[in-house]
């Protein structure tokens, strides 16, 4: 090309290079914003820069906030509640644990139907330990160790629960006897209806075995 393309030089706008009056006091953000708006002369360039900045911020917010909330929302889903049958207290069906044995941890399980996002309710097998104290009083332990979630097992001879992964030991009430577990075994709510034991919501207890999660 014969004609040499010249880059337009930076425009010199009146007021841009004028010395900015120093705000008298460094106050809060609103005070600083107000003082910078009132003490600096408004030029065309400054107006356009500001407008561009705020419009960009508004667009980013309009797209970004719904996107961020949608992305974060699965983290806020609540655990589902509902009662699931563990088994009959009298005359257990073949293959079912006998829940009428008193004061001994009995390994059992129940089936929870959990709706997993877009998937219809999926059956989920939950293993538990049930202790029948008689008089329709029970303790229903979650089988997962409170350390890292390994399944505990009842040691009849020693009379305690043992987690095989890091030797977490719990007594028959679920208190920590040794090893790394940070809190006693978790419990399930239970109820007895028409001779059937049901499991409900999972909750944590403190060292005095008082319920801490609502």
């Amino acid at each position, binding site marked *: 090309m014969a004609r040499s393309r010249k*880059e*337009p030089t930076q425009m010199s706008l009146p007021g841009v290079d004028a010395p900015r009056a120093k705000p008298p006091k460094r106050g809060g953000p609103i005070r600083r914003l107000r003082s910078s708006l009132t003490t600096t002369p408004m030029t065309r360039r400054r107006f356009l820069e500001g407008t561009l900045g705020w419009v960009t911020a508004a667009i980013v917010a309009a797209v*970004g906030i*719904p*996107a961020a*909330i949608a992305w974060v929302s*699965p983290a806020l889903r609540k655990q589902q509640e509902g009662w699931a049958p563990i088994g009959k207290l009298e005359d257990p069906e073949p293959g079912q644990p006998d829940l009428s044995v008193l004061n001994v941890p009995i390994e059992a399980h129940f089936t929870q139907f959990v709706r997993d996002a*877009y*998937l219809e309710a999926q059956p989920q097998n939950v293993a538990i330990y049930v202790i029948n104290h008689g008089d329709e009083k029970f303790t229903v332990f979650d089988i997962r160790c409170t350390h890292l979630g390994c399944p505990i097992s009842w040691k009849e001879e020693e009379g305690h629960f043992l987690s095989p992964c890091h030797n977490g030991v719990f007594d028959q009430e679920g208190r920590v006897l040794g090893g790394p577990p940070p809190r006693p075994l978790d419990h399930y709510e239970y109820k007895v209806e028409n001779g059937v034991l049901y499991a409900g919501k999972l909750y944590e207890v403190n060292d005095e075995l008082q319920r801490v999660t609502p």
Partner: protein
Amino acid sequence: MFKGSFSWVEERLGLSSPAKRVMDHPVPRYITWLHCFGGLTFFTFLIQVTTGIILAFFYVPTPDHAHESIVWFQGSVPFGTIVRNVHRLGASAMVILVFLHMVRVFVHAAYRKPRELNWVVGVGLLMLVLGFGFTGYLLPWDQKAYWATNVGLNIVGTVPVVGDPIGNLLRGGPTLGSLTLLRFYGLHVFLLPLLTVGGLLLHFAMIRKQGIARPL
């Protein structure tokens, strides 16, 4: 608030002057509002990327769950309806804007020497945008999506000699099914975006190098 961190990085990397050179470059006096369509297309592309990334966290490209996952996303996830509909309508907007941009370049004869290569890259980007539209249309996996893709792939099949092999390649076999959905998903979220970003970089670099065409 971040002045300290900014100057810390600035002192080490000295990024503000090259950044200024890239961002703060003067625009010729002869541009008009018609010159905005290219930038607007890029803006819709950014919106499609943002909403598309969110959708990718909730969408499942399998025939048994694709539609359910979208229904669930719209019905149960906060702002799900907005995010998906912005993506859906943004796709239409992008095709319209890219077309307007092309018409403007054509009418202004801005494709002439020395900008022929940028026109070629631009046509490639147009094909990619249409490819996004075609592959994205199947993903909801409803009746409309299924039959529209069926028709589209049958049209591909009418091309002499190479039509059937290309149709089978896109379809992943002779029948439209789970593999078609996966192929379209893979194209839509991996291959086409990569090619598009590459094409955009070329497109923008050439505009910077050659400047905006003078009016007729």
